[in-house]
C-alpha cells in the first residue's frame, strides 16, 4: 500500500472505526501542536493532558485497554500533575511569556525544517514498506498476558525497571532538596 492508496482510502468509504480514528488522531495532533505553540506554559500543560488522553484513546481503539488505563493513570494523572507542580514552583513571570520560542530564529526555522524533513522521510519509508501484517485477529491482550511476560521472559527488565524507579526517586529527592549554600 502506498501513499496514493492512503489518499484513495480517504475518498472512498470510511468505516466507523476509521472515522473514530481520524477524529482521535486529529484531536491528538492538534493538541500536540497546542503544546508546542501555546505561549502560556499552563496552556501547554493542559494541551499535553489532552494529548495524553488522545493517545490513551488510540490505545483503546487498538484493543490495548490495559495500556490505555496505564496511560491515563501515569501520564494524564501523575506526570501532568507533576508538571503542573513544577510549573507552579518556577512561575515568576507573566503567564503570557512563560512559554516563548527560542530566541534565535534560525534555530526555530531549521528546527521546523528538520522536523518536516524527518516527517517526510519517515512517512515515505512507512508508505513504501510492505508490512508483514499478520492475519491473526486477537482480542484485547489483557493484564494477565503482560503480567506473565513481565514475571517470565522479561523479568530482568522488570526488576531493572524497579531499580530504575528507585534510582529516579532517590535522585529526584536529592536534586530537588538541594543543599544550603555555604
Amino acid at each position, binding site marked *: 500500500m502506498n501513499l496514493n492508496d492512503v489518499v484513495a482510502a480517504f475518498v472512498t468509504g470510511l468505516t466507523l472505526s476509521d472515522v473514530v480514528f481520524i477524529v482521535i488522531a486529529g484531536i491528538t495532533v492538534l493538541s500536540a501542536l497546542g503544546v508546542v505553540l501555546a505561549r502560556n506554559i499552563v496552556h501547554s500543560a493542559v494541551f499535553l493532558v489532552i494529548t495524553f488522553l488522545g493517545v490513551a484513546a488510540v*490505545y483503546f481503539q487498538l484493543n490495548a485497554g490495559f495500556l490505555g488505563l496505564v496511560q491515563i493513570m501515569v501520564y494524564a494523572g501523575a506526570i501532568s500533575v507533576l508538571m503542573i507542580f513544577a510549573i507552579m514552583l518556577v512561575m515568576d513571570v507573566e503567564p503570557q511569556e512563560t512559554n516563548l520560542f527560542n530566541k534565535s530564529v534560525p534555530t526555530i526555522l531549521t528546527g521546523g525544517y528538520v522536523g518536516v524533513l524527518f516527517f517526510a522521510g519517515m512517512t515515505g519509508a512507512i508508505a513504501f514498506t510492505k508490512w508483514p*501484517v*499478520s492475519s491473526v485477529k486477537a482480542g484485547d491482550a489483557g493484564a494477565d498476558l503482560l503480567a506473565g511476560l513481565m514475571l517470565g521472559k522479561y523479568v530482568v527488565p522488570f526488576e531493572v525497571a524497579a531499580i530504575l524507579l528507585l534510582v529516579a526517586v532517590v535522585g529526584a529527592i536529592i536534586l530537588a532538596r538541594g543543599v544550603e549554600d555555604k
Partner: protein
Amino acid sequence: MIGLSHYLVLGTMLFSIGLFGVLSKRNAIAVLMCVELMLNAVNINFVAIEKFITPGTGLGQLFAIFVIVVAAAEVAVGLALVISIYRQKKSVNLNDFNLLKW
C-alpha cells in the same frame, strides 16, 4: 481503510511535533513536555505494531509500559533538575544555560 501505516504516520507526526518543540521551545519544562510527546509517539507505534503484526503476544504493549515507566522516571528527575537549576539561576530559560560552551 485504516491500516498500520496510518497509526505509524500518526506516531511519526506526534514525534515530529515533539521534535520541533524540543528544538524550538525556550522553557525547560515545555521541552520536557515535548520529550513526553515523542515518547508517546513511540508508544503508539509499539501498540499499533503489536496489533497488526504480532497480535496477541503483548510484546508491543510490554515495551510501551516499560517506556511509560522510564518516561515517568525521567520526568521526575527532569523536573527535579529544573527546580534545582531554577533555585540557582532563577530561570528555566534554556537560552540562559550556556556557562558550558566551546
